[in-house]
């Protein structure tokens, strides 16, 4: 067992070598192309210029990260807080499903960004308003996946619980349906986080005065495309870290009974 785990790790480490090399080559090509082929920092800033931007902007960036994570956090928390309970209720009770399903089917296809005007009119140019856009993006994937997870709960397991004395809806949901739907809920949250991050950028581009998305627009107006690129890379890295951290967390919790539950690797 221990030996097996060890060898898996060794294989991983060896594989990382190729990946690092690949990134390194990309950076070299980028630098050469920017310096020799394009030669215009407005069209393609070079790698070293972007690194310099990171250095000059580090103080601002730290602040912007906080602001953007706050927008992300507000939206995700609300998305989970609304999406999971609604998904549970709709997945379990047929009538509730029938009441809300048509509404959701109509509202869901509206792109979250299309809500920005109303968000601003209803809530104003506030952090909550940005959070609202993120919420709109996050809530549907969470709701739909929770719902699907509940619909897929094995009938045998429900009946098994019932003959063991678990007959109340509340107990059946808590002890059987919810644990069995956890992998689906986790997948929903993970998809939602991807959408939510896009919404953070979009919401901040309109009407915010700080945040990572705002700065992309701001520096573009000032024709500092090296700074724009730095913020883009930062956005990518934060999104990646959040996703990795979440997967790590979920997989640790679930790996006991199911392996590779969160799609992709």
């Amino acid at each position: 067992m221990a030996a097996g785990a060890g060898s898996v790790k060794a294989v991983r480490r060896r594989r990382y070598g190729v990946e690092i090399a690949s990134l390194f080559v990309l950076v070299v090509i980028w630098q050469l192309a920017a310096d020799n082929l394009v030669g215009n920092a407005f069209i393609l800033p070079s790698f070293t210029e972007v690194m310099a931007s990171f250095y000059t902007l580090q103080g601002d960036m730290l602040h912007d990260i906080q602001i953007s994570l706050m927008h992300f956090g507000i939206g995700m928390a609300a998305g989970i807080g609304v999406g999971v309970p609604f998904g549970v209720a709709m997945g379990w009770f047929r009538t509730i499903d029938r009441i809300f399903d048509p509404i959701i089917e109509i509202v869901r296809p509206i792109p979250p960004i299309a809500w920005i005007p109303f968000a601003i009119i209803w809530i104003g140019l506030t952090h909550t308003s940005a959070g609202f856009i993120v919420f709109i993006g996050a809530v549907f994937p969470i709701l739909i996946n929770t719902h699907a997870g509940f619909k897929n709960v094995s009938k045998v397991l429900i009946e098994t619980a019932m003959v063991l004395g678990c007959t109340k809806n509340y107990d059946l949901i808590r002890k059987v349906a919810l644990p069995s739907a956890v992998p689906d809920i986790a997948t929903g949250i993970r998809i939602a986080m991807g959408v939510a991050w896009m919404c953070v950028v979009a919401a901040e581009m309109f009407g915010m005065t700080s945040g990572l998305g705002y700065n992309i627009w701001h520096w573009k107006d000032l024709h500092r495309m090296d700074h724009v690129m730095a913020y883009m890379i930062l956005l990518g890295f934060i999104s990646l870290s959040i996703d990795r951290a979440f997967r790590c967390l979920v997989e640790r919790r679930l790996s006991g009974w199911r392996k590779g539950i969160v799609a992709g690797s």
Partner: protein
Amino acid sequence: MLTVSNISRVFESETGEVEALRNINLAVRDKEFLCFIGPSGCGKTTLLRIIAGLDQPTSGEVLLDSKKITSPDSERGMVFQEYSLFPWRRIIDNVSFGMELKGVPKHERYETARKFLKMVGLDAFERSYPYELSGGMRQRAAIARALANDPKVLLMDEPFGSVDAQTRNILQGELLRIWNETRKTVLFITHSIDEAMYLADRVVVLSARPGQIREIIEIGLDRPRVRTSVEVNVIRERLLGLLMEERTRGCGETVCWTGLELGSD
């Protein structure tokens, strides 16, 4: 005492009506080991589900100690033909499930669970997850779970249907030993005459659909029975004859497949 009186069950679906059971009358003695045998699709599972409270009869009623059965509860435990362990729970938490619902404190329910795990020979696997167990081990764990809930009646729907012949013989022996120790009323569905011969006090032979009681055969031989002894063979011949008749009767109109294991295994 368990009394089944005048049970009929008709399923209605878009394709028409299916009469699964017709006028089933049965008095099960306390602490009896009763086996059901009959052609595939004759309503055995349906009958057991009605006794469990998981299905409602079209007419008739089931009484346990003169109380009418209307919904599932922990008085009647059931072991399903399919694997039915909760995959997110360790074996010991699967076995303690019923006690957990009743609010039995953790150390107490673990103590009871360990006793039953020992009884089915799984004490070394209490920390394992279901996917780490073989098919036969899972069924043993499911039996332990049903027993740990201390039901008056244990309903078993072909619990050994999907394990190989050797394991099956061993499990039958273990089941008899456990039945001796716990003295529950056991209702046991099987497709195997051999299994019924080895286990039962009485064997209920059901007719082809609609399922009716064809005959109830009192075995009346001391245990442990020798599978190849003359007395066993005499009764086996009788059962075989009855089932052959039912098989040909049930196949008047369509292709014949009863799923019966007519040979000994």
